[in-house]
């Protein structure tokens, strides 16, 4: 466990937080971009410093790791890993991050009035810094991740933040399109990557990279290997802009120059390369690995080099040369030789150095001249000598000329291409392609210098030299490129590169940074490449138009557009299906359920059982008669034309069900069924009277004048669901066991444990409440969400009241000030439900709702209905109380509180709200009344004595009731003194609400 590993991440995250603060506060307006850049650069500086401090142990061959449990139930850990490969990338990310942050400050200061621009800063510049630091955090996390899921999270982070950065100038249509395209492709690849990583993790048995790399043999041997490797490669290649998905990278060039320099040269586009290099020890070494990566890499290298040469936009040119270089890197990973990985790490470093310098220089040119079009630039070296010098050094490195670092990169690439391990079929193609690409890249580098800096000015512009720090920033990587080539071999750097290559290769790799290795084939090929490149450069005025005409569709851009159109089409289709008509949805649901039951559920009608008549034929006959009545009455409710008759038929059907229940014999439910059926009847008829007559007549029209096809369709759906239901019911009835597992338990224990004779009542009232006593948190509240629904209904049902407004024509709008109130109710209720979620701990369960309720209470000004919800939320935590009596007590407390609050808040709504509370309390009472307790007055009256009374009662009965004791024992501190609340209730109720007197006054 190395806690130091987290510091770079935390530093960048803190920097992002600070920048985020700048975007929303006034401080962001007062600080100039330059100051902001310098200030925020501290974050990556800290990260860089920490990483450098870790370097000695890495160079000594150690691997540092750090992890913390993330989702323990899934075995997920958030873990970081630092080895040679991570260190190389992390140093690049943080190091170039420092440069880019400082540079951005100057880039966003307008060029013309540099002296007086301090006050003109806008918060939008802070926004750029915010995005950039967020990206930096994600990128650092990506390269430091020691776990597949951790890596994926940061991977997606880079996709999203790079979207924000590319779309930074969001008013520009091209920027928006480019950003969306980049997100679409890299995000799609990200999904593939996730699937691939999950496959790999499930085969390896762990998501940690250490374990995945250890299980390399198992992964390669698995029959899922092609799938998982293909998915991971897809993710990596879309991210690293490999052909044919490379076209998003030039499109993303609408990002500001510092973002391009950072994302599109040094860091994000190398994430795919990093991932492939990371996974090589586990997945590499197979034929599929070689052919896929070499082929794609080769194609990308050539396409990038070819298309780049014809570009006129400096940044597009650089983008395509980056594509080409990324192709080189992927191709190198595809080779399974030691020298390839040596070339890989050298190329990564060399490219990051010269390409970031060139992008930053392009930014300077754009900043100072206002254009980056090669057709308008030219001859600016006089005005900008320092920039010109830096550009020249970087371009020479890009061209691969000695004595720059890029030369070494090209040499090792050529050495790899001519390595004897390369299969014989391609041993000509590889060197030839490498030479060709090298020549074209040299020509591209020449274009930058000759077309923009040298030559004659092509338009009337008066560029200035950039401020010193601005050109000093790109000078650093450029000079490093030069220094590595010129200085005697730096030991530490060579060791670092060797460690990085070894981590990726899976075996030690020797890296030497000597430029001169004697006269050999790579050198000869290099000379050829330089020669051809120079020739192409010399003939550029003739060749470039030729390239433009010859370049066909070398990308999948049309396919991309087609995919977008297809998605739009699907969306259109979805909105056609989802037309808001309830009946269509219902029909689809029923059909889908039926089809799934039959196909997936393998539902079939079981063999019909033999006809059996019980011992009492008369009873059986009565049952059959009742079944007939139920069915016929239901049918009548469908066929009868007047709604009233249909409702009566429904009631007849329901009452027949009650009769059947009596025959069971099940008197409890029969009683409830009769009551509910009667209530249903009354409520339905009442509802019918509330509907206007013309509305009902219209309803009658369209119900019974339905078109025949529609009727047939509905009947078919109904018959189909009926058949499915028949199969389900019959299967259930035929295959049900004849021995009950659970009922005997209830029958035996109902009496001793709950002192209730009625077993059904005991199950409902006591056994289902026992989960509270048992303290099983998973069971404690199995109804999350019902409060939320209630709140939503409350919010909705308020609205029609506005109908009485004189001006209102039906769809009366809710007055504006009310909406936040409703929202607050719903939000508060949702919050309370969240707190009551079974997974929440005691603290959230009990403590949370209080402040939430209190907050709503204070905010609740004159909002009807608020009081009820407030006190519900407030008392939410009390539902964790252990026993029935306490719950009942709480219901009364809730009533009293609701009354108190609602009395103050909304006198008019009082009856409605209190009726709800009464119903709750009475419902419990009804069920509890079926108990006939043998001892203790408490249960029948709904009151359990508080502690001292209980003790007295115990003494009197001399037979302590275990039940009362257990029930009276509070589980949490707040219920320890229920007495004051109870005592206070009657008084309040007397004053405010006489209705409760009869039910709650203690006897």
């Amino acid at each position, binding site marked *: 466990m190395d806690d130091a590993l987290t510091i770079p991440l935390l530093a960048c995250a803190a920097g992002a937080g600070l920048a985020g603060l700048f975007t929303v506060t006034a401080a962001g307006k007062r600080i100039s971009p330059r100051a902001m850049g310098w200030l925020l650069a501290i974050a990556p500086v800290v990260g860089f410093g920490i990483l450098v401090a870790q370097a000695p142990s890495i160079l000594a061959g150690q691997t540092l790791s750090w992890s913390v449990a993330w989702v323990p139930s899934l075995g997920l850990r958030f873990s970081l890993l630092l080895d040679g490969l991570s260190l190389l990338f992390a140093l690049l990310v943080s190091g170039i991050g420092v440069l880019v942050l400082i540079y951005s400050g100057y880039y966003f200061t307008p060029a013309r009035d540099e002296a007086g621009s301090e006050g003109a800063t806008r918060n939008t510049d802070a926004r750029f810094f915010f995005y950039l630091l967020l990206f930096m955090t994600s990128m650092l996390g990506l390269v430091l991740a020691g776990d597949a899921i951790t890596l994926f999270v940061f991977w997606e982070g880079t996709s999203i933040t790079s979207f924000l950065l590319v779309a930074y100038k969001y008013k520009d249509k091209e920027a928006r399109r480019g950003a969306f395209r980049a997100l679409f492709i890299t995000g799609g690849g990200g999904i593939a990557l996730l699937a691939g990583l999950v496959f790999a993790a499930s085969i390896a048995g762990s998501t940690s990279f250490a374990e995945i790399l250890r299980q390399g043999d198992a992964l390669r041997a698995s029959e899922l290997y092609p799938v998982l490797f293909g998915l991971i490669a897809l993710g990596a290649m879309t991210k690293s802009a490999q052909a044919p998905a490379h076209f998003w990278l030039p499109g993303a060039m609408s990002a500001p120059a510092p973002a391009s320099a950072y994302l599109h040269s040094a860091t994000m586009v190398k994430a795919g390369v990093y991932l492939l290099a990371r996974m090589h020890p586990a997945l590499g070494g197979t034929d599929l690995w070689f052919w896929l990566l070499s082929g794609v890499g080769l194609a990308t290298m050539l396409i990038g080099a070819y298309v780049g040469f014809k570009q006129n936009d400096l940044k597009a040119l650089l983008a395509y040369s980056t594509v080409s270089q990324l192709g080189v890197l992927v191709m190198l990973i595809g080779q399974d030789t030691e020298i390839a990985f040596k070339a890989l790490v050298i190329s990564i470093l060399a490219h990051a150095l010269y390409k970031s310098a060139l992008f930053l220089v392009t930014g300077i040119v754009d900043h100072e001249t206002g254009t980056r079009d090669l057709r308008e630039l030219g001859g600016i070296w006089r005005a900008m000598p320092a920039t010109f010098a830096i550009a020249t050094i970087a371009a020479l490195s890009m061209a691969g000329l000695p004595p720059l670092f890029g030369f070494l990169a090209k040499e090792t690439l050529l050495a790899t291409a001519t390595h004897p391990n390369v299969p014989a079929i391609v041993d000509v193609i590889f060197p030839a392609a490498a030479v060709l690409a090298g020549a074209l890249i040299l020509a591209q580098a020449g274009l930058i210098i000759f077309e923009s800096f040298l030559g004659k000015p092509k338009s009337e512009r008066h560029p200035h030299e950039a401020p010193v720090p601005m050109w000093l920033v790109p000078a650093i990587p450029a000079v490093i490129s030069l220094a590595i080539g010129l200085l005697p071999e730096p030991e530490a750097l060579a060791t670092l590169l060797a460690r990085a290559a070894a981590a990726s290769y899976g075996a030690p790799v020797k890296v030497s940074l000597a430029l001169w290795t004697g006269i050999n084939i790579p050198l000869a090929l290099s000379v050829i490449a330089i020669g051809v490149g120079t020739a192409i450069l010399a003939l550029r005025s003739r060749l470039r138009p030729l390239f433009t005409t010859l370049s066909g569709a070398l990308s999948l851009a049309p396919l991309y557009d087609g995919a977008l159109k297809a998605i739009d089409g699907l969306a259109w289709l979805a909105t056609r299906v989802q037309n808001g008509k309830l009946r269509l949805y219902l029909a689809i649901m029923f059909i889908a359920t039926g089809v799934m039951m039959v196909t997936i559920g393998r539902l079939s009608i079981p063999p019909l059982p033999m006809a059996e008549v019980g011992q009492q034929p008369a009873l059986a006959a009565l049952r059959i008669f009742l079944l007939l009545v139920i069915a016929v009455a239901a049918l009548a409710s469908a066929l009868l034309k007047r709604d009233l008759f249909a409702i009566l038929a429904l009631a007849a059907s329901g009452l027949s069900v009650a009769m059947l229940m009596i025959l069971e014999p099940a008197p409890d439910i029969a009683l409830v069924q009769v009551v509910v059926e009667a209530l249903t009847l009354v409520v339905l008829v009442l509802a019918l009277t509330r509907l206007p007559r013309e509305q009902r007549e219209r309803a009658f029209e369209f119900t019974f004048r339905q078109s025949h096809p529609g009727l047939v369709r509905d009947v078919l759906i109904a018959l189909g669901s009926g058949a499915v239901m028949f199969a389900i019911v019959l299967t259930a009835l035929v295959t*049900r066991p004849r021995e009950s597992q659970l009922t005997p338990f209830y029958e035996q224990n109902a009496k001793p444990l709950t002192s209730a004779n009625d077993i059904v009542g005991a199950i409902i009232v006591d056994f289902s409440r026992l989960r509270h006593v048992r303290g099983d948190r998973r069971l404690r509240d199995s109804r999350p969400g019902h409060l939320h629904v209630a709140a939503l209904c409350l919010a909705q049902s308020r609205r029609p009241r506005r109908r009485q407004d004189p001006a209102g024509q039906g769809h009366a709008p809710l007055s504006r000030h009310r909406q936040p109130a409703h929202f607050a109710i719903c939000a508060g209720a949702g919050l309370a439900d969240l707190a009551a979620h079974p997974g929440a701990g005691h603290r959230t369960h009990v403590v949370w709702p209080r402040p939430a309720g209190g907050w709503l209470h204070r905010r609740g000004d004159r909002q009807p209905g608020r009081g009820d919800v407030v006190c519900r939320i407030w008392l939410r935590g009390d539902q964790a109380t252990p026993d029935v009596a306490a719950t009942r007590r709480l219901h009364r407390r809730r009533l009293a509180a609701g009354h108190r609050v609602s009395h103050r808040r909304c006198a008019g709504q009082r009856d409605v709200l209190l009726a709800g509370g009464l119903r709750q309390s009475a419902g419990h009472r009804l069920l509890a009344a079926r108990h006939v307790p043998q001892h203790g007055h408490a249960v029948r009256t709904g009151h359990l004595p508080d502690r001292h009374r209980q003790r007295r009662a115990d003494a009197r009965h001399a037979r302590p009731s275990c039940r009362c004791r257990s029930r009276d024992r509070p589980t949490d501190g707040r219920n320890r003194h229920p007495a004051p609340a109870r005592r206070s209730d009657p008084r309040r109720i007397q004053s405010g609400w006489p209705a409760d007197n009869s039910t709650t006054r203690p006897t």
Partner: protein
Amino acid sequence: MDVLLALTISAVFAIGVFQLLRRNLIRSVIGLSIISNAINLFLLAAGVYRGEVAAYANAVGQRSDALPQALILTAIVINMGGFAMVLSMLYVLSVRYKTSDSDEVKGLTH
């Protein structure tokens, strides 16, 4: 008997589905109620054994199965609650949209 029960339950269920698919929302509500009746009947029929006396602890003889009864009791009460809610929604819709035709209720207007 099982076949008859299954036939009745499925017939009632089918009628409920048919009712639910009417355009008239009142009929849909009735359909919902019928479906809940069918489900209650199913639960009742799914009892492991049939008794001769009610499920009381002090009753003598073969008691009826108490467990499905407890489930039905819960289901009935919840159905009642849901029914009331649906009716109140119907009322709101009828006031706001001036119709009880489910096809005319598309999306939420303010």
